């Protein structure tokens, strides 16, 4: 994101400076502030002299549902949706297959609503381990064609095949081969977009579904991309779409042709980004397979099987969440300085509160106690609670030296650290439930969940 703004900003500023300091003063100054000249400058700066890249974006069609249908041939020709367990109040549609799609079933809607639209809908519980395995297997296929593969969630990935074209063939042919191999080897289908930047290739994979290949090149992008509705562009959501429509912008082409200042005025820095996206100026690279993304925060949240009515309920859920987050923190070799809790009440109103520790820590007991006291200070029980979350951030390595204090009991801290280490080993060997704190036994319905091993699918953003 920063790089983005920097490059566009630089281009815009430089253009303004060049124009304002040029010899033909008055005339130039006038044109400098005019949108067309400014825009032209940005075009030139960003668009010029770039070697044309070939980027594929591969998207597994109805991923969870396809995997479920593959493993269960009896339901393959029926409307199927993968959904959470309604008994634990996780009853929303996560994905649906093509047949269910025809009934107008949408991702994110509650099961009862989906069943109203299609009474014979078959709902199956998700198997995240299986999806993760399939995701890994698709990436293994992609890795035969490039070392630049960047995942976007479990089911999508960008593949930069610019350098592979010399050896393997044109981008479109590589896409065809990947499409065929995934179908034969994994039994699921993918849609692939082939283009010269990441945004248009993603657009291409969404353009035709399922099991299709769309090529968007410099000759045809105006016909294909520019005539599509504005919300088809990455990062144009509901709110942005509404605002755009009120400005009379309905298509991606109209975004591209709107003066950049107008977009900047109404959308701030996102105006730049969307304008660059729409014009095909996205220059963000596809990350190399071996580039590890740095972890910035670790968190878990859960929707409780019933509403939490008092502090004891909160204590049970929070203890499990803290235990999981702290274990993940230690497994990554971190200590954290900032703690954040998220509270959402039964009316779906949610808010965050955060605090910082004096010294970085990864001790479960300390983090749990602080999370609970933060909760105690921040919530007045205006309504029962539906879901809770906790996240740790501001990391340092767990062997980084730090200033100890006269006023803290460092010996006790060391003892607790050793205890956590032992607990981690025991849980690693004998499972999550082999060792629990006594207070969790009081409330098994709330505390019997395992965020450490379940639902470790992390949401991702483009930037």
């Amino acid at each position, binding site marked *: 994101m920063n790089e983005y703004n920097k490059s566009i900003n630089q281009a815009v500023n430089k253009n303004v400076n060049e124009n304002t300091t040029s010899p033909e003063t008055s005339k130039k100054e006038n044109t400098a502030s005019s949108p067309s000249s400014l825009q032209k400058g940005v075009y030139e700066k960003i668009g010029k002299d770039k070697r044309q890249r070939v980027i594929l974006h591969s998207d597994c069609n109805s991923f969870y549902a396809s995997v479920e249908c*593959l493993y269960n*041939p009896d339901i393959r020709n029926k409307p199927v949706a993968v959904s959470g367990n309604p008994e634990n109040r996780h009853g929303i549609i996560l994905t649906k297959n093509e047949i269910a799609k025809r009934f107008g079933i949408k991702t994110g809607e509650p099961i009862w609503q989906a069943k109203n639209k299609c009474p014979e809908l078959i709902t199956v519980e998700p198997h995240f381990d299986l999806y993760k395995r399939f995701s890994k297997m698709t990436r293994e296929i992609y890795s035969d064609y490039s070392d630049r593969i960047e995942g976007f969630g479990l089911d999508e990935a960008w593949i930069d095949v610019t350098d592979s074209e010399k050896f393997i063939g044109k981008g479109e042919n590589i896409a065809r081969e990947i499409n065929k191999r995934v179908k034969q*080897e*994994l*039994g699921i289908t993918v849609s692939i977009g082939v283009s010269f930047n990441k945004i248009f290739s993603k657009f291409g994979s969404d353009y035709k579904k399922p099991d299709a290949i769309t090529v968007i090149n410099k000759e045809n992008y105006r016909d294909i991309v520019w005539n599509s509705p504005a919300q088809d562009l990455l990062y144009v959501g509901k709110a942005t779409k509404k605002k755009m429509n009120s400005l009379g912008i309905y298509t991606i082409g109209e975004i591209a042709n709107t003066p950049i200042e107008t977009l900047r005025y109404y959308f701030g820095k996102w105006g730049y980004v969307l304008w660059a996206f729409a014009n095909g100026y996205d220059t963000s690279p596809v990350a190399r397979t071996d580039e590890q993304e740095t972890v910035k925060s670790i968190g878990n949240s859960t929707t409780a099987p019933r509403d939490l009515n008092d502090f004891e309920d909160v204590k049970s859920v929070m203890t499990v969440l803290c235990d999981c987050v702290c274990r993940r923190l230690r497994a990554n070799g971190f200590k954290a300085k900032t703690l954040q809790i998220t509270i959402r009440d039964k009316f779906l109103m949610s808010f965050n509160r955060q605090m910082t520790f004096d010294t970085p820590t990864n001790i479960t007991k300390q983090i749990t106690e602080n999370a609970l006291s933060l909760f105690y200070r921040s919530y007045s029980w205006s309504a029962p609670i539906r879901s809770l979350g906790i996240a740790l951030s501001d990391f340092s390595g767990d062997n980084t030296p730090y200033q100890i204090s006269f006023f803290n009991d460092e010996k006790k801290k060391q003892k607790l650290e050793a205890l956590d280490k032992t607990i981690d080993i025991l849980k690693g060997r004998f499972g999550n439930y082999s060792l629990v704190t006594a207070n969790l036994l009081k409330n098994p319905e709330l505390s019997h969940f395992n965020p450490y091993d379940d639902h470790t699918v992390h949401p991702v953003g483009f930037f």
Partner: protein
Amino acid sequence: MKQFVSVEAKFDTDGNLLPLSIIWDDGRKFEIDRVTDVRYAASLKSGGRGLRYTCRIGNHLRYLYLDDNRWFIEKPE
């Protein structure tokens, strides 16, 4: 239909795994005469995917799949 089966197999010196015989659930044992092809493949018929060994058993060609350390075959309906 998917039928999980026991398999006798051999690791060769290169680390390749080769199935030698399939043991049916009633104890009958079928020697594999030859493996003619090995590739990753999905089995739409039985529901699953894995490393697919095309095996010649007598006069029949049969697909034998290895997925997540379990062997299975496509059982005729």
